[in-house]
């Protein structure tokens, strides 16, 4: 009885992990399946990976997604960092909570609001509009993470730098950025993933011309099951695990959640 009690929680955890990974394992296994349908193992084949590599549409979508994600990372980090540096611990500190709404607002509402605004002012939807939207979404993560980290910094280091004759800009570049680097990298990775995987904002703001990877996957799923998606997902999973490894190693240094 005692043994059972002790094993209850580990067993439970095992079941939850099985539940979490079963679909992912199935996804990977069926990416190497010979036939597309039905869901039955018919032998090993790399056919779908070949098809994936040869598809120009997919790589075009990947390119678009990369452009959007990298731009969102760059814009949100540069603007977010300067914003935090020049407002945190000053009398302007009260404006920081302006950015906290981004996280608690349902994304679909932001998406349709942007769409309504863009169409009303005849701003063309597309990659640029999507970058604008993703940068806003990214602020919701970047600003709180950097603000929290900045509050934890030993402020006397910054004061020492200023006392020793460094200008505010020099202090910013040579003291604050290196100190915040782990937080910047972690926030950047998080923003990249969120932007790269985002379907909702893209669905509303990317228009018909710009195809991002999630939009492409959505179209594929709606038309029916194709193991090319499995092959693509498997590749993406490998890439994400590298990202998560870096992220986890940084997470011990900074507190993200």
């Amino acid at each position, binding site marked *: 009885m005692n043994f059972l009690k002790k094993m209850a*929680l580990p067993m*439970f955890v095992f079941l939850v992990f099985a539940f979490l990974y079963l679909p992912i394992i199935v996804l990977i296994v069926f990416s190497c399946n010979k036939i597309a349908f039905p*869901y039955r193992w018919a032998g090993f084949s790399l056919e779908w990976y070949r098809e994936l590599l040869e598809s120009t549409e997919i790589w075009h979508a990947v390119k678009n997604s990369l452009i959007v994600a990298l731009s969102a990372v760059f814009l949100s980090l540069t603007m977010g960092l300067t*914003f935090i540096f020049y407002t945190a611990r000053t009398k302007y500190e009260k404006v920081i909570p302006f950015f906290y709404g981004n996280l608690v607002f349902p994304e679909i509402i932001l998406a349709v609001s942007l769409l309504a605004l863009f169409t*009303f002012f005849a701003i063309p939807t597309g990659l640029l509009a999507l970058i604008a939207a993703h940068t806003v979404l990214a602020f919701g993560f970047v600003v709180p993470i950097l603000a929290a980290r900045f509050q934890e910094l030993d402020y006397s280091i910054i004061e020492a730098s200023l006392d020793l004759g460094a200008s505010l800009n020099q202090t910013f570049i040579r003291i604050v950025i290196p100190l915040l680097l782990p937080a910047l990298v972690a926030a950047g990775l998080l923003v990249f993933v969120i932007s790269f995987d985002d379907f909702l904002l893209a669905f509303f703001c990317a228009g018909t011309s710009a195809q991002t990877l999630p939009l492409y996957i959505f179209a594929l*799923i709606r038309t029916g099951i194709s193991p090319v998606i499995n092959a693509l997902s498997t590749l993406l999973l490998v890439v994400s695990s590298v990202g998560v490894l870096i*992220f986890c190693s940084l997470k011990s240094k900074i507190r993200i959640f």
Partner: protein
Amino acid sequence: MNNSSFFKAVPALLWQFLFFYIPLLFVVVLSFTDGTTSGFTLKNYALLFDSVYGSIVLRSLILAFLTATLCLLIGYPLAYFIALKKRSLKNVFLFFIILPFWTNLLVLTYAWFFILDRDGLLNSLLMNIGVINEPLALINNFFAIMIVMFYCYLPFMIMPLFSVLEKFDLNLIEASKDLGANQWQTLWNVIIPITMPGIKAGFLLVFVPAFGEFVIPLLVGGDKYMFVGTLISHYFLIGQNKFAGSAFTVLSSCVLFVVVFFVSIFVQKLFPSHREIRETEL
């Protein structure tokens, strides 16, 4: 820092206003117009006084509530288990929790097709072992939506729970036991109140996006059920009636915030002492 450097903080603020607050405000303004007359009208809201809309909002609330509750009930013991592990093992567990969260949501949803579909793995397994004779309808229903919602939102619940549980002082459990509390009393009176900030954060992080969820019902719900997210997208993309759509968007977000507000007050009432406990802990 002097006043003149404040302008360097302006780009972020400007961006935030241009692409967050102004669009939201714009939708509020749209909801009070009808596109033909230039004046203020409540027509769009009047149209919403129909039980159809009420039931859609209610259905979304139920979905969000069930998802968040399920994630909490499963996520809490899991986060507790991981938080008590040794550092190296903890990182391994965390890695495997975060990985699905970093995987495309569409891909995860799609993965469930293989399991839940009519000819999917679960049905063939059940038929092979003779539990059922006919394949069960596992997809395109509320059940499938719930499974996939839970699956996709679980990491959002675990992360905030984990970060409060990690800081939890285990001596408090000992103290509680020494003072004569049984396991459930310790859980209810000590562990849960102290970890309440994480529970609240996790619940909010799941409840709010789940209320507006649009992709999962679309893909695995089989177009059977209308949710808030689905209806909003219909208004703006298919129906192109952005005035009525705006009114519905505004009203449903008001409902959402009122519900969140009252739930947090209720939780505060249920665990009134958590703040005092935290203060004495410090």
